[in-house]
Structure formats: C-alpha cells, structure tokens
C-alpha cells in the first residue's frame, strides 16, 4: 500500500513552526511565498520546490538543486543572478507547478544537505539576502501552514529518480488505465518486467501455461529449484513476483479464444507474445476490428549445422489505425514444426524482442519521440541490423 505518514518529519515541522507555507505534493516538497528580486528594485514571490520523500524517518531529497517557479532572480540593482544561482532555465512541470528555472548553489556550510530544513532554508536565505536591501520586512515566513497531498500510486515505494530529474510530465504519459500481455513465455515475461515498472494502473496477464525448469531460463530474475518445479501457473507466479513492488497486476491463467477475447476490449494497448499462430490471428483481427492498438512480437532461431552456430531474427509488428493492413502479414497459421526440438530460444533474444517492443510502445504513446514511424521492424542477428519493413530501402 502507498505509505501514509501520520506525523511530519521534525525538519518539515520546523519549517512550519518557523511560519513557512509548506506543501508536500507527491514526491516533492514546496515552500510557497518566497520573496526574491525579479527586476531592478522589484520584490516578487514564488515557490521553491525540492524532490522529497520520507519513509520510516529517512528523508530522501535528491541532490543540492531545487526548482523555482519565479523568473531568474536579480540583485537589487537588476543584475541577473543567472551565473551565480541558476543551473537550468528550461520550463518544467514539477509537482503540478510550472518551474521556470532550477537553482544550483552550493553552500560553504557543510550541513546544508543534512536535512530538508537546511536545504530549503539555504535557498530562502540566499534569495532573502538580495530582497532585504529593498524591503527589510519581506519574508518567506508568514502564517505557517502545511498541506500534504498523497498521490495515488500503483507502486509500494516511489521511483525517486523521476522526481529527482523532474520528469513528472513525461511519466504522466505512461499512466495508461489498462494494458494486457497475451503470452507470458520468454518474451512476454520480459515485456512484463519493463511494463511493471511504469505506472500503468492495470496490467492483465493471459497464459494457460505452467512454469517448468526450461522456461525459467528465459525469464527475468531467478527461481529456486522448488519454484522451478512447483508447476505454478506462469501468470500467477509473475503476478506474485511483481506484486512485491506494485499493485494492479491481474493474473488470467487461461488461453484467449473466441469466448473470452472480448475481455481485451477496454485495453488501451495489448502485447501479443504467443507461439500459436491461430491464437495470434484471432486476437490480432479482434483488436484491429475494435481499433485497439497492439504490438505482435516473434522470433526465430535456426541452426547453421556446418558451422555449429545459430542465426536468428526478431520481429516487432505494431498495429494501429494507420497500419491495420499489417494484420495480414502476421504468421497466423498453425506451425507444424516440432515446437520442442526445433524451438530454440535464448533469453537475450527474448529480452531484445521484448525491449524493442517496449521502446516502440513508448513511442506510440508519446513518451519517446518518433521522427520516423516504424510499424514493422526486424532485427537480423548475423548482420546486427534493424530493418524497417515496408519502407523499401532498395
């Protein structure tokens, strides 16, 4: 469960006691109403924001920098303090506020980063020192207030790297309501490994297969000998593993067929990572008809017996409204070739297939830029090349 602190840390309490207007907003702490000199002789007020997370008495507040919602501060005579104080003037959305710059001012005092009180008051004092020459009565201290807004999160503990880098607006794009992975073999389980670490509300897993020792060699992480032999359903096992860090992983130890394919209808995105061609065809055609974007993955590894070496190719096919015709290119017939002795799979190729799919997915939802749209991608191992299928390069 997301933690719910009942008492403020003594350092935050001290800020309130000294009459600062303090808010804890998700993974940030904000001091509002801080006076600074915005232009020659003009005193304005803005907020200082720091990454902040407190758990069991341990404060985590990132590095020595803070965000500032005001303009670049000046001296009383209007000289810019940009070179003294400001590390970055890119406008960034932080804790729901528009930060106009980021301060980086290292103190001579060794205790500045001992706690959040010291860190924030260090910046308040620095700004105040220029304000005092114009208005000796202006102060960040006022009524003294605290507001705490817990962000509802699927994670049991926050990804502090997001707050540290001020990536809220980017991370927000990953908050899809519902995504499904159909097929939790080697590739599907690596897809889950990456998806589980994004703030999707619900990740639904579909596979009727059980865990066997051989399958464990193609999954992320490691299982004990008992776990490898307990014949647990893959979806149940993976749900239990990823539930260690988050909520919202749903296990469906069933095969998707005509009778239940409608369960995917409210998904925002689907990953198909199955071996069985007819299942792939059924799901792909259904999703294309419903206008639900999806990625189908697949790979093949073959022997070159003369050399005792392997060759391989990895495929990522992305189907949305603009690429529906690709459904007809998917391998949807039942492959008669022996799935045990001729199904060579190696974990790094499963992982590569999965990560290529994840990167394309994150492009399609606008997290990564997509300067060239690629909907059919092949990696040919012997050439170490990624090929864009369809955009003929000949």
């Amino acid at each position: 469960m997301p933690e719910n602190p009942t008492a403020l840390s003594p350092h935050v309490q001290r800020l309130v006691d000294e009459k600062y207007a303090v808010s804890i907003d998700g993974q940030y702490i904000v001091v509002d109403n801080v006076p600074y000199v915005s232009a020659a002789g003009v005193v304005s007020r803005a907020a200082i924001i720091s990454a902040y997370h407190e758990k069991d008495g341990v404060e985590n507040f990132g590095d020595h920098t803070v965000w500032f919602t005001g303009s670049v501060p000046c001296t009383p005579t209007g000289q810019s303090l940009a070179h003294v104080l400001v590390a970055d003037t890119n406008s960034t959305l932080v804790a729901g506020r528009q930060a106009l710059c980021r301060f980086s001012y290292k103190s001579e005092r060794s205790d500045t980063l001992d706690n959040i009180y010291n860190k924030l008051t260090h910046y308040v004092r620095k700004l105040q020192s220029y304000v005092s020459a114009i208005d000796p009565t202006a102060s960040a201290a006022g009524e003294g207030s605290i507001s705490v807004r817990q962000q509802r999160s699927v994670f049991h503990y926050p990804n502090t790297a997001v707050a540290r880098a001020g990536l809220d607006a980017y991370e927000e794009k990953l908050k899809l309501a519902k995504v499904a992975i159909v097929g939790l073999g080697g590739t599907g389980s690596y897809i889950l490994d990456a998806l589980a670490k994004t703030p999707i509300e619900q990740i639904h897993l579909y596979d009727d297969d059980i865990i066997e020792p051989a399958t464990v060699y193609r999954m992320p992480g490691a299982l004990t000998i008992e776990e490898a032999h307990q014949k647990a359903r893959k979806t149940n096992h993976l749900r239990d593993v990823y539930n260690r860090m988050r909520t919202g992983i749903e296990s469906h130890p069933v095969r998707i067929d005509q009778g239940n394919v409608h369960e995917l209808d409210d998904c925002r995105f689907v990953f198909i990572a199955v071996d069985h061609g007819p299942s792939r065809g059924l799901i792909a055609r259904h999703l294309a008809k419903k206008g639900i974007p999806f990625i189908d993955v697949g790979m093949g590894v073959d022997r070159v017996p003369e050399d005792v070496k392997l060759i391989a190719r990895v495929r990522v096919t992305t189907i949305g409204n603009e690429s529906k015709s690709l459904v007809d290119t998917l391998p949807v017939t039942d492959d008669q070739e022996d799935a045990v002795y001729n199904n060579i799979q190696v974990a790094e190729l499963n992982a590569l297939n999965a990560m290529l799919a994840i990167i394309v997915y994150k492009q399609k939802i606008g997290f990564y830029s997509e300067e060239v749209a690629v909907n059919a991608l092949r990696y040919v191992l012997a050439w170490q090349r990624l090929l864009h299928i369809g955009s003929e390069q000949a």
Partner: protein
Amino acid sequence: MQDAEKQKEFQIFVNTKPRKVPGPRISFEQVLAEAGINTAGQDLNLYDVEWVHGNRAGTLTPGQSVDLENGMKFDAGKSNRS
C-alpha cells in the same frame, strides 16, 4: 549494371552460407530453397525473407523477387516464437 545483367550466375549468401544462383532475379521461394528450408505442407506466410547489400536492404514476401547482385546477403526463416 550492363555487366551484372549479362552475368549468368551470382554469388550470394543465404543464412550466412555462400551460394551460386542463376540471375537476373531471385524469388522468395528460391531463397527458401537455397536456405534448405522444406516448405512442403507449410504456409509460406510463416517465413520472412530479408536481404541486405551494402547500405541497401529490403524484404520479400511470397511471390516477390529482387534483382540479384554479387555479394547480396539473405536471411530466411520464421519469426513466430515467443
């Protein structure tokens, strides 16, 4: 180009192995045969054929063919496992 068209046989690579094939073009089905893939009773749509030559690259689907050049590399196989 003139010389290439006149040439009867081309030296190419299929699934990393050198092959000599008659020109001027090679089809999807011929690439699979050169790869030693037995397609009897199999749906050809289960197979992918990719080729590269220098900076150029392309794909073949059943029924398609491409102009041969010496040194072309082909990859043929399935991509349906997960």
